[in-house]
């Protein structure tokens, strides 16, 4: 019994003080940590892929006019899975290391990205971003014809 109490005491003394001084000194997370996401509306083509995979549905896509598409991120619901960044074809979403997101104002956790779209000639709705359309023009995109054989 005494021996075992002694051993326990040695473990405690050997461990010493392990409490970190955080938040008085910064404590950066490990590389690759998944924190708050950021969106670059210049790169976004409004495909909606991110909204499609987001499990808590915190990305909302709306078309307020014929040529604007708005992406809103309500990040107070974000689960930091980084799926949106993973599926984005244009790498418009980046995962930062920001984890200190506590706030009194939920607006701090909202991101709004406006994307200018070309509208469809037939239905008049948003069709494709002008940047992406330009890109298609430049490379002279054509559908590949079916091979006859």
């Amino acid at each position, binding site marked *: 019994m005494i021996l*075992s*109490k002694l051993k326990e005491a040695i*473990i405690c003394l050997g461990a010493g003080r392990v409490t970190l001084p955080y938040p008085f000194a910064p404590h950066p997370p490990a*590389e690759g940590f998944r924190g708050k996401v950021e969106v670059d509306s210049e790169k976004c083509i409004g495909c909606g892929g991110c909204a499609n995979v987001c499990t808590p549905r915190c990305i909302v896509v709306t078309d307020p006019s014929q040529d604007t598409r708005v992406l809103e991120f309500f990040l107070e619901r974000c*689960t930091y899975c980084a799926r949106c960044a993973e599926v984005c074809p244009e790498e418009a979403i980046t995962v930062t290391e920001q984890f200190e997101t506590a706030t009194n104002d939920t607006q701090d956790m909202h991101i709004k990205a406006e994307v200018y779209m070309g509208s469809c000639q037939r239905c008049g709705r948003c069709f494709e971003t002008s940047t992406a359309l330009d890109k298609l023009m430049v490379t002279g995109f054509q559908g590949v014809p079916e091979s006859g054989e």
Partner: protein
Amino acid sequence: MTTQQVIQEMREKFGEGLRAAEEPAPGALYLTVDKELIRPASRHLQDKLDARFVISAGIDRLATEGCLSVTHIFSRDKAKQFVCLRADVSENGAEVEAITPDVVAAGWSEREIQDLVGVKAKGHPDPRRLVLPDDWPEGVHPLRKDFPYDANPEPVEGAEVKFKEAPEGTSTVVVGPFYPVLEEPAQLRLFVDGERVVGCDYRGFYNHRGIEKLGDSVLTYNQIPFVAERICGICGFIHSSCYCEAAEQAAGVQAPRRARYIRSIMLEVERIHSHLLWLGIAGHILGFDTVLMQAWRIREPIMWLCEKITGSRKSFGMNLVGGVRWDISPDIHPEILDCIGQIEKESLAVVDAVQGDTTLLVRLKGVGILPEEDARSVCVVGPTARGSNVDIDARVDHPYAAYDELQTRAITNDGCDNWARVVVRLEELFESIRLVREGLKTMPDGPLMVEFAEEIPAGRQGVCTVEAPRGEAIHYLITGENNRPDRWRVRAPTYQNLQALPLMIKDETIADVPITLGSMDPCFSCTERVETVDVRTGRQAMLSKEDLLRLSQEKSER
């Protein structure tokens, strides 16, 4: 006994009553019987075919096949096989004979099906509500397909909670729903004679989150892993792995070898941190906070390691149907080995120190006895079972991930008391460390994700188990339309283990109840992953100050 022999035997016994038998994937046998035969067939499986009851699932098939079904899932551990026994009933006569009188372990599952799918278990010894709040209207069953996932029916006024009668000559000590020790709500009503506990009644399911419902009405196949991971606040990775393996089985694909190794390694890492966490809590329950502080200090580096490997210390977000998202690159291997080496060294020192600590032993040895027989009949799982000498371990009995190659053994102890469960967990901790080393060494190269040629077709089934730190978790999946399952059934280990609590605390003193409960490492939020918001708590929160005042005045007037 081979699959064919099992089918043969069931056919001889039940003749035409056995409607269908199929084995779409090795290790999962699906039998359909007439509803009249569900009880004898279950009994036969349990008594003659060495099958251990695992869980039941109620399924609404009204839209597709015009029936409701009840599927009881059994595990034939030594044959490495699940047997899923299904019976269909029509909507009007939604009733099957209860199997609980023969298969004691089905007690909760059958009550759950009554609540959520509305198939009555005729002749159930305790047919009270289990999951639904008492003021939930009669006849409204949330897992029916015509019940919207976000519906919130009007609560019934004046509904009464049905508690068990206290036996003659005993008084009732009410613990919970909120109480110290465990941070999750549950109500235990202990029937005591003096200081001795003679029985108890359990009322839980205050934490319903509607996860199964979300799975078949809102989420898609690849969103579910992220929700599954949040079923448990400690061992989330086991749930996402189990779901993914079940979905892969249903889809008829296998995750690549390397991905399966990564799953196994992370599962063992999770077991290491979970067992250390538990060791701390157990010390804390006994008022021995040194163990809490030191066990958690030893555990912390592995949490940081998880953050380094996966980008998050707890919700790894690693699993998708078909594989994993990130590699464990060789660069980080030395760091992992260092970390677990350190944990091994320090844990050994702690084990060495506490082993001779008589204050601890007095509280643990010979307390919370669960005899082997009872452990088998209630079908407890994990260290709770292995501490009662029941040698089941999903890694051995139903190898998943890479456990077909990373071989391990079921660590048992025949002490049947709280101490036996401690010893089992400590041995498992060191075994997990060995497995991580082994896994890192033998992990093959290759891709992390399989390519899906086409969408997962509807109507396929998959059942998979993963050995969580607390015991086996089961996920059963039926694929559906719209890129989501038709039914996703989850059973966490505590669901089965908690049903043994009345046996474990019988004849103990009240003071030993917390540690006995603690010895099974319960996780209530896992257990209660099922249905919609608890309307009762919602309403209570809206009581005005006047109401509260009036209530307490009335109370003190008596």
